């Protein structure tokens, strides 16, 4: 086993465990911290996949900005704000059953049905994933979606202000 593969398995285990940790934590702060761990792990996986720039973005925006927003709101509201009471007893078993089915389906497709059809990773040039190449693509080929994103963020900003200002206005 190569070092890369060992690293992948370690990261995968951390990612899955932290996701599970997020799900089962009673305290929302723990959930948020587990999610941060998960996002950072995924960022390292991005590095393994020759996407250094996206890895940076992942850490600064997701693990940084967005999760800080989460923590800020949790702290603002207090950590005990929601007592966990599951009122639909049939839901978790169905959810787990459904997920089991999905996992099996995925496993089947990935490892048995079409194993050789999926493209395999080979050696790749050093410039792959650099900010320059991504920026070029983003502002030429993907110009329209980029502009749409900016409109979307404006809408989100306006919406958030309207929702939050309600109490005083």
């Amino acid at each position: 086993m190569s070092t890369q593969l060992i690293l992948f398995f370690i990261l995968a285990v951390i990612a899955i465990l932290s996701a599970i940790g997020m799900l089962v934590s009673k305290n929302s702060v723990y959930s948020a911290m587990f999610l941060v761990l998960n996002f950072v792990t995924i960022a390292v996986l991005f590095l393994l996949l020759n996407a250094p720039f996206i890895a940076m973005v992942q850490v600064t925006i997701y693990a940084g900005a967005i999760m800080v927003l989460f923590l800020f709101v949790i702290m603002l509201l207090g950590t005990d704000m929601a007592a966990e009471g599951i009122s639909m007893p049939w839901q978790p078993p169905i959810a787990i059953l459904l997920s089991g089915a999905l996992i099996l389906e995925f496993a089947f497709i990935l490892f048995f049905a079409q194993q050789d059809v999926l493209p395999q990773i080979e050696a790749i040039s050093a410039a792959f994933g650099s900010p320059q190449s991504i920026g070029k693509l983003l502002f030429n080929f993907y110009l329209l979606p980029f502009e749409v994103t900016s409109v979307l963020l404006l809408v989100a900003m306006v919406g958030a202000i309207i929702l939050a200002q309600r109490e005083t206005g």
Partner: protein
Amino acid sequence: MTTADLNVALPFIIVAAWACILLVIDLFIPADRKGLTALLAVAGMGFASIPVLLRFEESNRAFNGMIVQDGFSSFLQLLLLGVGVISVALAYDYLQRRKIVKGEYYTLLLFSVSGMVLMAQAGDLIIVFLALELLSVPLYVLSGFAAKSNPESEEAAMKYFLLGAFASGFIVYGIALVYGATGTTEIEAIHNVLISGVSNLGLLTVGAVLILVGLGFKVAVVPFHMWTPDVYDGAPSSVTALMSVGAKAGGFAALLRLFLAGFPEIAANLAPILVGVAALTLIWGNIAAIAQQNIKRMMAYSSISHAGYIFMMLPAIVDSDIAPDAISAALFYLFVYAVSNLGAWGVILALERADGGGLSIDDYAGLGERNPGLALAMALFMLSLIGVPPTAGFIGKFFLFRVVLDANMIGLALVGVITSLISAYYYLRVVVVMYMRSGDPQVRSERWLNATLWLTALGTFLLGIFPGPLLNLASRTGLFGLVP
């Protein structure tokens, strides 16, 4: 990027840019004159319809295939802009009555319409995803607009948001898998890869199903409909009217284009599932509507059932001979549904009281005596939603069922006809209550609202008698590169 690119995107650009400008202008309009904002919003949508009309029949792709213009997109864009205008007219008086007058209402509505207009043109999965978000995010906020006086509005907004975000999670993952299977996200290119046989069919199928699930949430088909009654009930009625038509039309625009132009072969494999979803939606939507006492909840189930009627076209487009008919039948039905449904919501808005009451079906008692014009209009809308001749709904359903029969899905056609008969029960109950029982309904009468009611009632009636021009228009709406 060239001028030609910009020309194709012009309807979206006008609406989105106008919304941005209106956001600023609105700051200078005093709170008691927000009618001006409403008027400006209508003007913006009017401007946006000009380039659509001028280039109705042209076919173009722009921005490297990100968006495409064809008859399909032009037809839907006109419809959606019209829906936007009517939603503004419906909201104007309602907002004043509920004392939630804010200029941002119209701005957000414009943003949502810009998302719908973009969705009609989406030629790439990433645009499908972004347009869906752009049309949904303002709707999440608008659903919570009446929160000050009505806590249910806030709950509705939260529920709509969480399920909408959940659905977009499915769509994103679906897009990722489709990308992995084909190496592209452009809808036409996906099809090219698919027919060249180098794609990973397993991944593509799972991806298509995930996208179907996500869009299924948005258009509210069974089993992804659970949110609909609560959200339609809790959101301000003027928002619900937009939601029940605009968001649905946007979702169906994506579904139809994706499954016809993107992966019809996958759709053929999934046909049993698609037929099952359509049948379930028809049965459950129509049966659950019977038990409702609240007219908004009844209309919510009604909208689920109508999603089912349009969804019948998805398994039908698999057959390339029938596909053009299926598309035009779906477009025509979307139009008819929009007119009748917006009209019905107009009546509901006219009867809703300032405190949020007047929404029970019993509150409609005596409307036939007190306000015969309004009662007649409501009766017309209800008959059209059932599909009784000579209303527009009849023509719409006629073409849907004809396509289903052409596609040899006799069982599904049977389910459709039987559930239409069931639906007569709850729609006609409203009519019976209006005319047979006495009561004292309070009715609002306001210029914009009345104009809307006249327009939609006239549309429902005239489309039932002279469907020719619109049908002709709908049948000329080929999808880019597929149908002439």
